[in-house]
């Protein structure tokens, strides 16, 4: 049997990077929420926030460990499977990876030790500082890796040295490399995507507790924080997505054409649903807003958008995968905005906690950001094909010449098994942690004092839930504000 090392190496990269990317977005998003919750604890000294942070720390630690375990592969896989690529981009890509190691990984892993194991060893302020540093470290990591990847999409700040297989890119302008045309758009998008991941994760677990009437005090506070954070991030990512799509129209027109199933140059509709058909070069079953894509990109429904026909056949990306994943991501993004705004509305009306159907949707919605983050990356990376570095190096020329198909198959099986076990364990331990739940805030020490907006919201919900024990909302919240301002 003849095993194709290119196809297998691509499959292996897809497997390892997609598995890895289940974890970092949650580290970033959950990290952000832990900073907010622990900040609230420091400010109000309310033990319910501390209980929430302690609880999410345990989940964060497991998530982080699985992320590191699967991430080590990524650091070396460029060399093992993509040696020609590594020689070509070492100057540029390697620098970003090294900077990630020095600036991000040490920060993250160092303070993670204090965040997870240091509760009884350092004071609350130092602990908060550690949480903040871990969060910053995970953001720095996103910064450098997105810069490196964006350079593959929109390479700038370099010149080419050497000929043929010996050719390599060398940096001529570091800042032009760092701020390559797509880097900042994509970084925003990745960070907001991660924030949404964290928010929906916290909302899912908290909604589950509210439904089960367990840990209500902690769950409602966590939910409210995550809901506000998730709503803001969902709206922000729409704006970031729009500006990013406009940049793709300029920088990688072939990719935009694949996203939108736009085969022929001309005015373009915005297709909401459909299935691209490479035979007829049309989108079947399309439901579309006529001229809308032209409006979004050029502000004119008649303005032509470049179609796939403008590119030589061997430089066209496949259409089906980018089209479907891009549309899936966009639909999920719309759902995130809708559901969080609905949640906010119900919270404001004081009815959120007894809308069991809505809470059930929130429990299940955690799957959404996982799918959307994966789908967005698949769209971006498959949409770049057949290039590994856009316009410069083709994926098929980038593999390691000395590595044989059989060896790659062996490593795929190896990682497949490891990841299967890892995934099963992660789900198992996550379930254990959720079943166990946060500690009782009363046992953590001093009795809770009032919060602010969140307390008012939670109290409002309580009133709706049990009318008999109605609490005068206005007075609690004003007391809360007074005590919150100490």
């Amino acid at each position: 049997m003849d095993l194709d090392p290119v196809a297998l190496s691509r499959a292996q990269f897809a497997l390892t990077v997609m598995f890895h990317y289940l974890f970092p977005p949650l580290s970033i998003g959950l990290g952000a929420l832990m900073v907010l919750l622990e900040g609230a604890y420091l400010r109000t000294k309310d033990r319910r926030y501390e209980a929430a942070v302690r609880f999410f720390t345990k989940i964060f630690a497991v998530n982080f460990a699985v992320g590191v375990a699967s991430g080590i592969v990524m650091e070396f896989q460029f060399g093992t499977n993509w040696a020609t690529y590594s020689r070509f981009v070492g100057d540029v890509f390697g620098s970003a990876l090294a900077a990630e190691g020095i600036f991000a990984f040490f920060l993250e892993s160092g303070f993670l030790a204090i965040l997870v194991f240091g509760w009884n060893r350092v004071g609350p302020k130092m602990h908060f500082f550690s949480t903040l540093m871990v969060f910053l470290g995970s953001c720095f990591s996103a910064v450098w890796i997105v810069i490196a990847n964006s350079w593959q999409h929109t390479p700038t700040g370099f010149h080419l040295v050497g000929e043929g297989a010996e050719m390599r890119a060398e940096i001529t302008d570091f800042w032009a490399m760092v701020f390559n045309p797509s880097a900042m758009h994509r970084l925003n998008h990745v960070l907001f995507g991660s924030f949404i991941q964290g928010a929906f994760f916290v909302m899912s677990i908290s909604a589950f507790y509210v439904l089960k009437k367990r840990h209500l005090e902690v769950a409602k506070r966590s939910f409210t924080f995550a809901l506000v954070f998730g709503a803001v991030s969902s709206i922000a990512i729409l704006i970031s997505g729009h500006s990013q799509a406009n940049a793709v129209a300029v920088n990688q027109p072939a990719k935009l054409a694949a996203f939108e199933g736009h085969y022929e140059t001309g005015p373009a509709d915005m297709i909401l649903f459909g299935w691209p058909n490479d035979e007829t070069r049309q989108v079947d079953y399309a439901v579309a807003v006529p001229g809308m894509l032209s409006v979004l990109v050029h502000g004119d429904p008649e303005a032509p958008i470049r179609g796939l026909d403008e590119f030589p056949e061997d430089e066209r990306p496949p259409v089906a995968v980018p089209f479907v994943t891009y549309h899936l991501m966009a639909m999920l993004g719309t759902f995130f905005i809708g559901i969080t705004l609905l949640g906010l509305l119900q919270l404001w009306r004081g009815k959120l906690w007894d809308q069991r159907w809505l809470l059930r949707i929130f429990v299940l919605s955690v799957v959404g950001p996982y799918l959307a983050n994966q789908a967005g990356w698949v769209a971006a990376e498959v949409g770049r094909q057949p290039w590994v570095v856009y316009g410069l190096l083709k994926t098929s020329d980038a593999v390691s010449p000395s590595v044989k198909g059989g060896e790659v198959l062996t490593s795929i099986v190896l990682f497949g098994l490891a990841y299967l076990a890892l995934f099963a364990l992660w789900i198992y331990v996550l379930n254990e942690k959720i079943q166990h739940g946060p500690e009782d805030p009363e046992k953590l020490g001093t009795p809770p004092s009032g919060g602010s907006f969140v307390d008012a919201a939670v109290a409002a919900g309580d009133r709706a839930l049990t009318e008999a024990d109605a609490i005068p909302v206005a007075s609690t919240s004003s007391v809360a504000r007074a005590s919150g301002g100490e």
Partner: protein
Amino acid sequence: MDLTDLHVFWYVLLGVLVTGYAILDGFDLGVGILHPLVKGDRERRLVLNSIGPLWDGNEVWLVTFGGALFAAFPKAYASLFSAFYLPFMFLLFALIGRAISIEFRSKVKSTSWRTYWDHSFAFSSLVVVLLFGVAAGNLMQGIPLDARGNLVGDVRDLLRPYPFAVGALAVVTAALHGALYLHLKTEGELQERIGRLRWPLFFAFLVAYLGVTIATLVLVPHATRNFDRFPIAWVVVVLNGLAVANVPRAIHHGKPGQAFASSCGLVAALVFLFGMAMFPKLAISSLDPAHDLDAWNAASSESTLGLMRWIAFLGMPFVITYTAIVYWVFRGKTKLDDFSY
């Protein structure tokens, strides 16, 4: 050796990263190798938690080494990792398995669950150290690389006696280093039990150390060539001897801190000797010396090396500060609490 030369600077900095990794992950890997020798769940948890907050950060030295090698010497990064493809995949597999074992072992109370992960933890630690040693031995002996730096032949060319001897040395060194660390971090009866492991481990180390030294002098003649160029390096050989000699002395006088410091020194010295055997080469081709990769022909552009030097100058003080803070916070004897593994 001119450190103002960017190529030399990066070669040395990579050496520093490897040394940091060998000393730090060395002891936690060693703890993993010794873990099954400790009986009882509470004792095993204490042993595991002695490295609990630290092992993850220690591994970052390896990851950063990977990134730095990619940035500074991309051709070596590409050639070496694709040449060692299968062994490297097993190494990554073992590192993942080890992380899983540490993370999940204590999450369930069942005895069979814990026993399984204990075995997995020990075995993966052993495999990681062994493979690092085998890789180092292969690098010193040379591997069949063609003119473009790609491996000719396959993995069987890498399975030779000398690299396995170096692998064995790596295993006993890590075990000794780990035992001295554990002796420092434990107390009472557990400490006594670990204390009894130190002498056998030290003598095993001594035998492996002398054996590999002799094998190196016979089989890898170029290993000592650099001592003619840089006679000052003999100072490190003397210090290495002193560190080795100080381990039994410190054990005998009951000074666990000094014993562990000495084993840190001897690990650093071994890495240094490895560097001396290689410098300025990053990969030696057994086919033709013209195919060798060194700090010049495998390097990135001068401007990238220069820029990355600033990143290193900017970043390394922070790295050392974080490391110091974490080791300071978790100083003293290991205790179990709610957040332990």
